[in-house]
């Protein structure tokens, strides 16, 4: 039984948008049968990526969540993308504690630990795109 994907998109330019994005994420996860702790984890990942859009780009970006149910399982894809400055050294940015703005520097590495699949691509001067998957058995 495979249903239509359930899609939520939030344009993120300010902190309040980031708050909205993570509320949407939590609701989406709960709607598709994820446990509260998984929903909380996803919401936190969304919060981290959305706050990065607010803090590390000039004009923000987009958070898109797509949930897809399958028999006895579900998967949520989280995409964060922007046309911002890009990240010059991805390996460095993925290190715990690295921050160019006095943050804790655990947003990117922490998000990777919170999700099941994590992929990041970035080009200086063009933007950054992060795609994550979280699964429910």
């Amino acid at each position, binding site marked *: 039984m495979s249903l239509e994907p359930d899609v939520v998109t939030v344009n993120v330019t300010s*902190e309040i948008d980031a708050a909205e994005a993570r509320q949407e994420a939590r609701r989406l996860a709960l709607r598709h049968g994820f446990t509260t702790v998984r929903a909380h984890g996803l919401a936190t990942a969304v919060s981290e990526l959305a706050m990065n859009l607010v803090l590390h780009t000039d004009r923000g970006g987009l958070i898109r969540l797509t949930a897809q149910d399958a028999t006895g399982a579900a998967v949520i894809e989280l995409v964060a993308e922007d046309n911002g400055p890009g990240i010059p050294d991805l390996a460095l940015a993925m290190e715990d504690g690295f921050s160019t703005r006095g943050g804790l520097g655990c947003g990117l590495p922490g998000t990777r630990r919170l999700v099941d699949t994590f992929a990041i691509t970035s080009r200086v001067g063009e933007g950054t795109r992060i795609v994550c998957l979280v699964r429910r058995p």
Partner: protein
Amino acid sequence: MHGVGQILLQNRASVLDAWLARLRDTAPGAHPASLQLLKLELGTLVEKLTGYFLTDDEDGAGAGPAFKSVEEQAATTSAACARDGLTPMETATLILSLKSIAGELLDRETSAKATELYRMRTALDAVVDRLALVTFAAFVETREEIIKRQGRALLDLATPALPIWRHIILMPLVGIIDTQRARQVMEWLLEALSREEARIAILDVTGVPLIDSRVALHLTKTVEAARLLGSQVIVTGISPDAAQTLVKLDVDLSNMITRGSLRSGLAEAFRLLGQHSKGPIETMI
């Protein structure tokens, strides 16, 4: 469009009456006092509009400095509508109704040729359309201003620092902690610590929906600042879900004392104060 101006001038009172009748239809629930105020605003708007048409020699609709004061009055009117709880739709409808009111008037009052009448109505329509847009923009602005004000008011309400025991203050945080809020929490906590000569602050985050690395950073800074004042902060109410997530994020909360519940946080506070709970407090914790 001098012609339009003349006709409006001669029929100002009836235009205003017709407009007020529409207002009563648009906002049947409005309070008489606010109707009275809106009446004044609409009256001024008719006056300014008349003035504009009288001085405007060209057919160019809604241009030039003369139109500025009409636009300003339209903005003021719509702000008044917003405050009185009219929806943007109702406000725009009200402004747009001027088209049919003044249009009918032109039809009735002018002896001009059909082509001239057509030109007058076109000019009038263009001006009113423009005003509806201005009104809408002003409406949104006013609403946003109201929302911002309410936001600030909430901010003030949401963060009391309660002296709950000698040397202990409690600050329950409720809602989203954004940067502004986080700063304020820190400021007020430090202020309350020194005002109450408190040695321990309990920061209860039960009501905070999510703690990400940014909120964690603010908490850490608050704890450090309190330590500089010689006080300690106990953070309570981190939910099991949040705790598991924070571990994965790998934010370092080791510099702060955390307790699951407010109750155990309070017990820890008393322990730190070196007081043994006695008397009535025993039943409290």
